[in-house]
């Protein structure tokens, strides 16, 4: 079937197209060239006057894995406040602070998001994470496997193993867990917490293994580059949320020694210690460093006011944050010695100095990092706020007077302690399209997503232009997922199943001999059952397709 999306204003930064009126053609779920004369067009969608973009991609959103389920179990009271009764093709479910899988898929798709990446999949939890993501309808999924706090890796590093062996272990992990990238959370710190450390600086020594986070970051960034994995090492830095942690963040960038590195939820890592309250914005220093370092990309992890729940593998920092839990209940636990898990519910309040300044710091980062190809729109869902607040966040970026009006209602010192009020930058639609589509696809190595050229998957969003970006981005006129109209004006019209995105770099399988012995001695399962096959991940992840992206990135 050939579908024409006719007469829309196309914004497609990956192909350098900015607001050009043209027709798009879709056949069998893929965007194709304009048909030759006389070819039959089965369906025409009139997009005249509307804005056409590729489906949006969220490269950091916690939608699967043990911690999200723990958050759901911990906070059922918020589910009850946000019921989503059966409606049209949608099954009944609940939203809330940690939304159900169904609500996650429906709400993402209704908003024009067509791919979501779970950033913290513990290898030992990978099977469950894929099943949970498989239960999330419509959107494509991928996940980053956590390394850097597991004992096998730390022992390799401590024993001075060759980089080649570390590369093999990283590649083996990507294969075994069906992941799209590697993430490190508080490098070495989660493990150090189990040896009673309560903080670990970038050059601090792990109390047992005697390695430093700098060494962990060095080895992992080298492995990612060496293997040609498209997504840079995804780094949740040291000292999350601690005043003065900007120094750790700058040291983390240096630890990459020019190799590619992605700093996630940077807002939580950009704090200084100035002022009477010993808490200040270091956004300017951090942004300058990012601007000067072309190997660095970041996502912001903007906070938005209201109830949420923070879910993190960083048990060290979540243990520290637990005293701020609201409601006063929390979970910090180890997960089979693979890494950690901390779930702390949180209510960000606009009249609270710290929260208001966090809000301002996030926006400062968005506005001060100049290259929209290297800064991504996230709230670190659900940690900084739910993903369904993205349209509001886009409005904050696109409309300076709105931004300053919100700022004026916050705790007054947020404005005086940050430069936000003086920042004049307003994002254009083109820049929004870069940061939510073209750039995430590029940095994840998704060749067929995030753009509208021939050969791309027909993940397309058609927006009715509106003077209020929040309105425009909340309920697009049409959302196509692989060529199917899945949502219209915010209402789900079809429930499809998304693909799974993975990378499979080449490596020496000899590493399995060592791993087999390790599994025999220390694990609760055998190496053979730990690994997830292509067939299994498609079945348990309910995916019609496993999309393997090329590992050809060099340098």
């Amino acid at each position, binding site marked *: 079937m050939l579908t024409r999306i006719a007469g829309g204003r196309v914004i497609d930064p990956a192909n350098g197209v900015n607001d050009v009126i043209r027709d798009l053609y879709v056949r069998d779920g893929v965007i194709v060239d304009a048909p030759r004369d006389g070819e039959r067009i089965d369906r025409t969608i009139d997009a005249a006057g509307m804005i056409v973009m590729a489906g949006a991609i969220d490269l950091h959103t916690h939608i699967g894995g043990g911690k999200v389920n723990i958050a759901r179990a*911990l*906070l*059922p*009271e918020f589910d009850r406040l946000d019921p989503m*009764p*059966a409606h049209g093709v949608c099954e*009944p479910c609940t939203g809330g602070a940690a939304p159900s899988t169904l609500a996650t898929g429906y709400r993402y798709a209704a908003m024009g998001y067509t791919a979501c990446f779970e950033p913290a999949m513990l290898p030992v939890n990978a099977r469950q994470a894929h099943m949970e993501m498989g239960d999330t309808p419509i959107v494509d999924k991928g996940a980053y496997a956590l390394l850097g706090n597991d004992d096998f890796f730390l022992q390799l590093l401590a024993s001075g193993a060759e980089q080649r062996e570390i590369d093999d272990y990283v590649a083996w992990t990507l294969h075994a867990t069906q992941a799209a990238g590697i993430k490190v959370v508080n490098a070495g710190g989660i493990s150090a917490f189990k040896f009673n450390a309560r903080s670990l600086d970038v050059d601090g020594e792990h109390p047992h293994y005697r390695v430093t986070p700098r060494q962990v970051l060095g080895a992992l960034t080298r492995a990612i580059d060496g293997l040609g994995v498209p997504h840079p090492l995804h780094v949740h830095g040291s000292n999350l949320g601690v005043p003065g942690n900007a120094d750790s963040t700058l040291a983390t960038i240096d630890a990459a020694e020019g190799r590619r590195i992605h700093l996630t939820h940077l807002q939580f890592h950009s704090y200084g210690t100035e002022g009477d309250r010993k808490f200040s914005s270091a956004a300017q220093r951090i942004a300058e460093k990012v601007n000067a370092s072309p190997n660095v990309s970041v996502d912001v992890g903007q906070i938005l006011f209201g109830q949420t729940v923070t879910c993190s593998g960083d048990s060290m920092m979540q243990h520290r944050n637990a005293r701020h839990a609201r409601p006063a209940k929390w979970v910090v636990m180890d997960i089979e010695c693979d890494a950690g898990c901390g779930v702390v519910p949180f209510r960000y309040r606009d009249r609270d100095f710290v929260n208001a300044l966090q809000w301002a710091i996030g926006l400062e980062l968005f506005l001060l990092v100049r290259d929209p190809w290297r800064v991504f729109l996230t709230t670190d869902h659900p940690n900084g706020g739910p993903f369904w607040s993205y349209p509001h966040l886009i409005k904050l970026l696109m409309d300076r007077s709105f931004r300053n009006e919100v700022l004026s209602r916050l705790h007054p010192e947020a404005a005086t302690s940050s430069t936000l009020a003086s920042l004049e930058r307003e994002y254009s639609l083109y820049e929004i399209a870069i940061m939510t589509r073209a750039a995430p696809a590029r940095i994840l190595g998704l060749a067929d997503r995030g753009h509208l050229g021939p050969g791309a998957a027909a993940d397309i969003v058609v927006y009715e232009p509106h003077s209020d970006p929040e309105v425009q981005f909340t309920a697009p006129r049409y959302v196509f997922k692989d060529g199917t109209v899945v949502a219209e004006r915010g209402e789900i019209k079809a429930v499809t199943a998304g693909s799974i995105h993975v990378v499979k770099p080449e490596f020496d399988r000899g590493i399995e001999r060592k791993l087999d012995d390790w599994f025999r001695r220390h694990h609760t399962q055998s190496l053979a059952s730990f690994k997830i096959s292509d067939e299994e991940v498609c079945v348990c992840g309910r995916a019609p397709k496993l999309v393997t992206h090329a590992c050809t990135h060099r340098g």
Partner: protein
Amino acid sequence: MSGLRLSLRARPPARVDGSALLPEKLQGQTLDAIRRIALPGWNEFHEVGELFEVSGEATDRLQIDQLDGSFDRLGALATAGTLVLRGQAGDLVGEGLRGASIEIEGAAGDYLGCGMRRGRIEVRGNAGHFAGSGRAGELQGMSGGTLLVRGDVGDRAADRMRRGLLLVEGDAGDYLASRMLAGTVVLLGRAAGNAGYLMRRGTVVLDQRPAQMLPTFNANGRQDLLAIQLLLRSLGGEGPRFSRLAARAGGFERWLGDLAASGQGELLVSF
């Protein structure tokens, strides 16, 4: 009898959320408008007119007859007016109540008055489990108001109770006042096992020796406390059985616990 009257005429195919049927919300609406209100079921909505005969006039008094236990959350979050339920009321009646009065001329399901803050609920028959408690995930149970059950209550009544008054004329199941934070419970019948389990503070008056006393409660001797006399005297209006208790109150055996929690709660047992 004045007010609006709904009489169930067809059993719904599955459970229905009846929380929209509040006197304060229906007051002043026409009967036709009320018949068109859609109540959410599990996978579909049911119009009031399909399920009930609707008669009378929508004032601040609403009576629902012939209830069969399939309507949940009746009177939830109500702030004003009077709701009379006849028959078997479902679960979660008066959840989070904020001020209205609910009279149940029959029995109630589980989670009666859970999380209620103000107002009054009176049940002529029995109530299910978790009466006056909180729902899963809530840190507190009922935190105000009066919940009176003429019959028996099931397990876990007053679980995590924070404030307010739970009065029970009949017996209580296991774990009465478990994890109680504060507030007052008066039980005229007999409590089954583990009464006061992990209670931190609060007062539980037991007119009969419970089936079992937890080993983590310490005997504090026989006490005749003025505060308890005043409390029981204030309950005289709640019926003859309560006034009899007040009249013969000469003191109680006082037990302090649960020492496995903070241990500032008290069980006062008649002797």
